[in-house]
């Protein structure tokens, strides 16, 4: 319990540090949100109007006052409102976050379904055709940038074959089939790179565990091969897979920008990029705070999973 409390408090400190750094850095970057807002395609606002709106939005106050306001708001679980369109930031994140999580979850499931069985098979048949082909293919999949994969998928499946829509989003509750159709390509684009990582780590980890004594003992006891692999080898080999996989997923929380952009998937990353471009200070801070909180939470979950997979960690 003390360990958990310690971890929890550490997480809170980490969140405060992240919020402070993000707040200061976005305010230090040049660019005035009000000038941007009123200057689109040749708009020429007068100085008085710009100053008046800055005052209305509280942007004329000293940065430390704005910072204190922000921290007080966060302490009340109030992320504030967008300075571009006055929309609620919490509501915006509430709408966008599930879509990014869904995209990541779909990609994660696809990559696990591909990467783990392939990794196991390659490790059990080292040097075989599948092992060698898998190694080349995974190297290629890891090396090709996700926007290239995405663009190629759009070209092939949407434009040439006409099987899929080019990109976009339909809410699941409105049309489940269309929703899945829009989800498939972006999730696959992420899954291609991710499954390569899972494949390589699973294969390497399995190869490390297979020659160990307890595996030989299990086989000597006459256990069926699949039983040995599943209960003894795989369970021990999964530790690094979980670690690496969780880190990859954490990275995806803020790293789906390109996929969301290429496939027009309205998730959190796209929202963050738009907010940075518009210098929407409260929106940027709010989104990064939520992403950081999730990342920290994910790490906590990984620690717990460690305990489940390897009971020695709990001691």
């Amino acid at each position: 319990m003390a360990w958990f409390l310690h971890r929890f408090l550490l997480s809170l400190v980490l969140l405060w540090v992240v919020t402070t750094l993000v707040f200061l850095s976005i305010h230090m970057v040049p660019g005035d949100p009000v000038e941007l807002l009123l200057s689109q395609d040749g708009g020429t606002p007068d100085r008085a109007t710009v100053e008046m709106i800055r005052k209305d939005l509280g942007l004329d106050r000293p940065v430390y006052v704005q910072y204190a306001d922000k921290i007080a708001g966060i302490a009340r679980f109030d992320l504030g409102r967008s300075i571009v369109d006055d929309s609620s930031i919490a509501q915006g994140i509430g709408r966008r976050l599930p879509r990014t999580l869904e995209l990541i979850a779909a990609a994660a499931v696809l990559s696990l379904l591909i990467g783990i069985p392939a990794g196991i098979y390659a490790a059990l048949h080292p040097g075989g055709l599948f092992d060698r082909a898998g190694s080349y293919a995974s190297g290629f999949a890891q090396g090709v940038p996700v926007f290239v994969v995405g663009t190629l998928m759009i070209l092939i499946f949407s434009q040439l074959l006409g099987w899929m829509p080019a990109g976009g989003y339909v809410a699941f509750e409105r049309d489940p089939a269309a929703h899945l159709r829009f989800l498939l390509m972006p999730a696959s684009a992420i899954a291609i790179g991710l499954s390569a990582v899972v494949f390589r780590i699973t294969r390497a980890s399995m190869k490390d565990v297979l020659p160990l004594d307890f595996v030989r003992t299990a086989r000597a006891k006459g256990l069926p091969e699949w039983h040995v692999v599943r209960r003894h080898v795989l369970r021990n080999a999964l530790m690094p897979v979980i670690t690496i996989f969780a880190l990859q997923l954490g990275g995806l929380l803020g790293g789906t920008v390109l996929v969301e952009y290429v496939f027009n998937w309205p998730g959190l990353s796209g929202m963050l990029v738009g907010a940075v471009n518009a210098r929407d200070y409260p929106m940027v801070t709010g989104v990064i705070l939520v992403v950081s909180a999730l990342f920290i939470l994910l790490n906590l979950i990984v620690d717990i999973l460690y305990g489940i997979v390897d009971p020695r960690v709990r001691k």
Partner: protein
Amino acid sequence: MMLNRRTLLQSLMAAAAMAPMSSGRLLAQGAGKRLRIGLSTYPAHFRAWVNVGYAGHLVSALLNRGLLAYDTNGVLVGELAKSWERESDLVWRFTLDDAKFNNGQPVTSADVKWTLEKIAAEGSGAHMREQALQIDSIEIVDDRVFKVATKEPSATIPALMAYPFLGIVAAGSTSEQDQGIGAGPYVLTSAEKGVEILLTASEHYFRNGLPTLKEIHITPYADENLRVAALRAGDVDLIDYVPWNAMNDIAATPGLKLDTQAAGAFMYLSFNGSGAFGDPKLRQAVSFALRREEFVQAVFFGHGAPLAGVPRPSVSPFFNKELANFWTYDPDKAKALLKEAGRESGLKVSLLSTSQYTMHRDIAVLVQSQLAEIGITVDLILPDWATRVTMGMRGQGDFAVQGVGMDSLDPDATSSLVDPTRAAHYNYSRGFEVPGLSALLARGRSEFDEAKRVAIYAAADRLACEHASFCGVSYRATGFARSDKVGGLELLPDQLSPFSANLFDRLTLS
């Protein structure tokens, strides 16, 4: 193969499994009479009268109507106002048509007065506020007739009433919703930021039989390539801001149509007079040193036109062929001007642009290489767009790459562009004066006789060109691409073409 119960079941299950994965085209066919538009940007907000860019105007034009508008020939025609006339040098009289707002409430003189007063109010952020400030008072004669009194004689009042973002909204309605209640062909049914906008036809639109389409579904596609892919895949029926590199392909694709105006929005250089470009000879040297056709070819893939004078639409009586081609490429003249300015040994200047938009970046790179040929060394400053705007506002950079369109065909619309004393804004030249230009432009605004105005603005354009108060680079083609099932699409002339959504009430879908 024998058809038995098992194979039949397997086939049906396979077909069922494939159904959800079938093409977007099938989805499209099921959409019926709903027009689907792929928009380049989701509007930053729906606040009335604030310039939210061309994409934002497309939405605004579907929700709102102004008093007047331009037709496809560039002629002012009535919208909510059926007639207008000048009663005296200081008073214009307008008579409203029998029009209704989207909620069924009639459009009255009181609504117009309220709208114009809100626009002119301090801090409104309205795009046309500066022009609206010339209005002294609005007198309501009756529900349909009102008079606009100006502080000075102003020939630009009818053009002001046709500004793209000047939609008349029901008095007091902006306190309930940002966009207010407009009198446009469509009503905003639902919108989710960055995802979609759904519009349904207004039952009270003042033009009989219009709009033809019952629904419009707008999806923003920030990536221009995806926007084109969505059109090709049949996900959308019409897209705006067609990328220049895709125009030839779209025009050649069966089933797709491309509608563009070559002299649409335009790119130019603004000068900062606080540095070397306070000397008119150096500004002229730059203006004569550019091979403008290369910009059209390299940056806009041939879809545009050189801009070698003050931008005036070819349909306008104020268009002057000689002045439109004032800055011909003449490197010898440019070098001679440098020598006259005492810079024959070379000149080093900084050019502010942005790396965020390729057309701005590529133009900066081309300007750098072409000016190097006459001995001007250009240091490029290429931050992101937001930083570039702030740097421009602070007056940083000796000159800057700019892109803009005209929102009015009145010759006065170019005043801010050519007169550096008008507005200290990142978009325009600043820090120097062109002797006599401000006075000429003021005369042009207060002159009602068209022939005299033509002469005044010709003199003003000549002054601007001779002093190179700005430097035209090139027009860029603007327009729309659509499925050939979409009919009735017309474009406004030349520089007004980005605002053609004003004519979208007559779009059809076969």
